[in-house]
């Protein structure tokens, strides 16, 4: 077999994005060559991307083999489940609490839920915990203040590393150290405009 699975996937990805782009671009007028409309350049770009994706796909059948990493059944099913759970939580969030109505709160809680579900599958765990940690930061920052947001973020991020999972005291140490450092750098020195403690604004 000479099929390059990575290139097949790359080609398909480029083509799919280009096709979506061309479809979305239907909203924009093309204009004329003299006074180009908003849709002119995107049209050129997405057709070019489509062509390149096709070439990548065509060449992929000759320049392999380069297989993708193996997915377990759990990896695949958890990916689907996490997308469903994330979407459901995101859509339901505004009805549960007005907390999620502003600052993309419902997007954040949806993404957080999705990533946490995804973390159940070993293949996704690292990606999921790191991303979940960042989502938690966004959710908590404006209403919970920087310190709370950072503490939760560091907690979730540390779940990604097996050595931390068995040593909660070590994680506490890291958290306290980083909280102090971030306070000193960003609040004391740089004075960035953000709430520091819960319910400050």
């Amino acid at each position, binding site marked *: 077999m000479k099929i390059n699975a990575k290139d097949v996937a790359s080609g398909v990805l480029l083509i799919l994005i280009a096709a979506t782009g061309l479809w979305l671009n239907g909203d924009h007028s093309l204009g004329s060559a003299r006074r180009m409309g908003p849709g002119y350049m995107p049209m050129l770009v997405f057709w070019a991307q489509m062509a390149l994706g096709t070439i990548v796909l065509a060449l992929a059948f000759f320049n392999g083999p380069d297989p993708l990493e193996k997915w377990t059944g759990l990896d695949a099913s958890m990916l689907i489940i996490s997308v469903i759970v994330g979407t459901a939580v995101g859509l339901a969030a505004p009805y549960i*609490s007005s*907390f999620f109505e502003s600052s993309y709160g419902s997007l954040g809680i949806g993404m957080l839920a999705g990533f946490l579900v995804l973390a159940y599958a070993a293949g996704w765990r690292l990606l999921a915990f790191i991303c979940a940690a960042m989502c938690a930061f966004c959710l908590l920052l404006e209403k919970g203040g920087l310190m709370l947001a950072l503490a939760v973020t560091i907690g979730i991020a540390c779940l990604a590393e097996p050595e931390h999972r068995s040593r909660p005291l070590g994680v506490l140490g890291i958290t306290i150290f980083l909280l102090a450092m971030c306070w000193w750098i960003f609040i004391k020195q740089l004075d960035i405009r953000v709430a520091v403690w819960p*319910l400050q604004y």
Partner: protein
Amino acid sequence: MLPRRAWLAGGAVFAALPAIACAQGKSWPAQPIRLIVPFAPGGTTDLAARLVSQGLGDRLGQPVVVENRPGAGATLGAAQVAQAAPDGLTLIVSNIASHGIAPSLYRDLRYDPLRDFTHIALLIETPSVFVANQRFPPGDLGEVVRLSQEQPRGLDIASSGSGSSNHLLIVQFGQMTGARVNHVPYRGAGPAMTDGIADVVPMMSDSLPSAAGHLQAGAVRGMAVATAARHPAFSAVPTFRDQGVDLVSSSWFGISGPAGLPPAVAERLNREISTVLAEPGTQRRFAELGGLVRPLSPATYAEFIAGEVARWAPIVQASGARAD
């Protein structure tokens, strides 16, 4: 940031109540005041806000902290303040883009420039000006109009961007004189001025502060300034009215808060801002920025904004610019 009214209703926040109670009592301001500048740092608006915030903070006894919230033609910052609690601790630099033009430009604006704000004070106005490359033949606006009608596809005039007040002034000029104009938009006044000096585009519509240095240096020639009388610092540049075009236009910005601000707070802010504006230091710095200081009462400032919204609507319509 957050619709505070909404989450108050949700009952989530007893802790914030004392802050609001405080704000409405005599002791306002009990906490630092956030002044949202809906533009990126470094522009005229940002600089002016930072100048005023210092003096204002000294007078109020609480720091006034400038916070840049740029984006979407200044409407992001405005939408944020429109939703903030009217406790006098969140204010915005209201301006021609977010409060004058945006209501006509954006179909689904998330705020009403009048109903969602308590307007407090006007800071400065900066006149608009048409400048031309030194090699551009016409000597006055009449010749410009004639030249534009002779050219089959119109005369190129640059501006700092589509939907900006500089762009709309070109449209208005075309409407009033019958000049045939080919608008060439840029990303900001700097690149437009570069091409004006390089004679890529013969004419440009700009605001006086950003064109001032180039006018003084003779890099470009002032064709017409949109003030009622000639500008004292640029007495050689004729006004539009001098040349038979009744066009008076300037860019402006002031201070506003969310709707429902206690009148006492608005009055106090207006008084302190007027005092700060009257200080010689501020006067000098503002003059250097190219602006004219015009103190207005809260009510007159609101009327002024209402007039601006009404004025720009038909011009935006005619310009064909839209954002949705």
